[in-house]
């Protein structure tokens, strides 16, 4: 170790008397102990996770109970535990009800949970990657790109990848749109929140228009109507056989993102700082863009473009567990699942027997939330005197 000589001839005691004490490697910090470094948010995180886990189970039961045929929650519980082999007693319910719960509602509830979890996590990661609190797959036009990809496959009947064609095309559409929006919004190495959202909205509008043109020109009669309904975002019509793909994509996405939570944190510090903290920003962002597009594309192919889930949930979650992605991501996944299961319950019951597309409902909640967020952030920036 090199002891530093005084910089000039004069003996120097250090104006603050700082001397050698106080260095981070000299242990002046007392004994914070293992858990002390986590702060009060650590304990709250555990409570929030347990509460959300319980809420998810309850929501799922509610989601399977509600509908044109009401099934009492206790009976739903019995049917599900019986089907899972946890309950060996004789069934006391009719075959018809079992079919409704297991074959119609269970996959729908699961798709809702998976989609909500996926969109919330993608939104949280996207906000860190583009360093913009307003980022979200729907607002950035990524969902519209995915829709266009999927609709192209439907209208032209392309089936290059067999049953995966729809998802593959949606993935490609999502990735291309994300790259387009990002490169358009970024000038001189900087990207402002306003420009990013404007680029996203503009691209989204164009892509949606093209989607509608394709549908009208496609001349497939009734099918166009069905696809148009799908472009509003909905969870209906899902069967067990088609559930595995969104499930796998979301599991993969959440799993990979959890291992990259520290890197996402570094991006919050800014690109230069993240580099000096050991993150290869360009490479990391490229890989994450592919991953997020994959999850978004598959989810859009399965449930249509459902907006604002990726915007609302991460922000609400941060209010409770703070900004560290090691806590934000798992919490957002659970909260997103609960949120979309309830949104779908509302979509099925509010105007029963008519069903409202769930994407319409999330937009109804999300639009005002977006405005509130915009005003809050503007207020904060003004208060600080920083643009």
């Amino acid at each position, binding site marked *: 170790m090199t002891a530093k000589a005084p910089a000039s001839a004069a003996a120097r005691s250090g104006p603050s008397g700082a001397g050698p004490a106080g260095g981070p490697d000299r242990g002046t910090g007392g004994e914070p102990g293992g858990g002390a470094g986590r702060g009060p948010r650590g304990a709250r995180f555990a409570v929030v996770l347990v509460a959300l886990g319980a809420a998810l189970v309850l929501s799922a039961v509610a989601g399977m109970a509600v509908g044109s045929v009401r099934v009492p929650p206790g009976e739903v519980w019995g049917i599900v535990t019986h089907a899972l082999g946890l309950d060996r007693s004789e069934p006391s319910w009719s075959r018809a009800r079992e079919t409704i719960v297991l074959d119609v509602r269970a996959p729908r509830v699961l798709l809702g949970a998976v989609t909500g979890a996926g969109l919330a996590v993608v939104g949280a990661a996207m906000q860190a990657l583009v360093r913009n609190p307003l980022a979200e797959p729907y607002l950035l036009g990524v969902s519209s790109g995915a829709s266009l990809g999927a609709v192209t496959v439907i209208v032209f009947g392309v089936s290059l990848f067999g049953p995966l064609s729809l998802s593959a095309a949606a993935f490609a559409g999502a990735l291309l749109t994300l790259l387009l929006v990002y490169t358009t919004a970024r000038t001189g190495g900087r990207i402002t929140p306003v420009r990013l959202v404007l680029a996203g909205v503009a691209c989204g509008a164009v892509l949606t228009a093209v989607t509608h043109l394709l549908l009208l020109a496609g001349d497939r009669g009734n099918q166009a109507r069905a696809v148009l309904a799908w472009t509003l975002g909905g969870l209906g019509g899902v069967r067990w056989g088609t559930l595995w793909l969104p499930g796998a994509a979301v599991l993969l996405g959440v799993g990979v993102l959890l*291992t990259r939570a520290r890197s996402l944190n570094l991006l919050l510090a800014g690109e230069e700082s993240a580099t000096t903290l050991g*993150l290869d920003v360009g490479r990391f962002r490229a890989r994450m863009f592919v991953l997020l597009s994959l999850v978004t594309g598959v989810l859009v192919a399965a449930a249509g473009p459902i907006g604002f889930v990726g915007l609302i949930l991460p922000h609400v979650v941060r209010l409770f567990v703070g900004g560290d992605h090691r806590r934000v991501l798992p919490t957002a996944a659970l909260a997103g699942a609960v949120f979309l299961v309830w949104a779908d319950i509302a979509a099925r019951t509010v105007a029963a027997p008519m069903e409202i597309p769930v994407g319409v409902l999330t937009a109804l909640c999300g639009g005002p939330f977006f405005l509130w967020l915009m005003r809050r952030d503007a207020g904060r920036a003004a208060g600080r005197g920083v643009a």
Partner: protein
Amino acid sequence: MTAAELVVEGVTLTAGARRLVRDVSLTARPGEVIGLVGPNGSGKSSLLRAVYRVLRPDAGRVRVDGADAWALPVRRLARTLAAVVQEPGAGFDLSVREVVAMGRTPHKRLLDGDTAEDARLIEGALEAVDAAALADRPFDRLSGGERQRVLIARALAQQPSLLVLDEPTNHLDVRHRLEVLGHLRSLPATVLVALHDLNLAAYYCDRLYVLRDGAVTASGPPAEVLTPALLADVYGVAAEVAVHPRTGAPQVTFLPPEAAGTAGAGPAPGA
């Protein structure tokens, strides 16, 4: 924490057609505190960015302990070199402690958790910049000076052998300026710091490099570099330099144009 050697060899940097830095060479021996001074736009920040691996040199090399900084993996370099840069970072509701904890990231593998050792280093770094009381505050709500101290703490938590700082005393009040720079001196690490305040640079740095228009015009110990002739030449302002009787460091006083004419003829008119 040990000290690394930094050698900048003939670095040239351009942005588009504009040349930011041309053919700059600089050496920081292990444990030295090297100051980078010069007027606005003289290339200080650009040179630092080449050192901390953000702005790739068009010519020349940056060597840290002999290794080409630009050939090392980003993470490897981050275990040796920490930087305090001028960049607004959104906090996204991170607490001060979480921001400082980022400094531990280059030492972590994929799924490593935070250890008691990490917590100790983070607390120590916060105390070193007098920010221990801020630990649980949201980073976004801090004042400019408080933020700056927290970012310095993050760099300290990184346990670098080479610390690069771009105007670290910006926004700091007088007491914290002295404390932070005093702490940097007490570190075993090598320090390269860009400073506006020549008197702080003169007092705290072992050697200075003076940049003008992207090139080094003078270098050496503060007492040799900071002469009225050089200051007039580089900054275009008349100055007096005296050795301060208490600190023993050169003390620069810039003379406003109306006072410069009477310099040497006693106090300025009206004094």
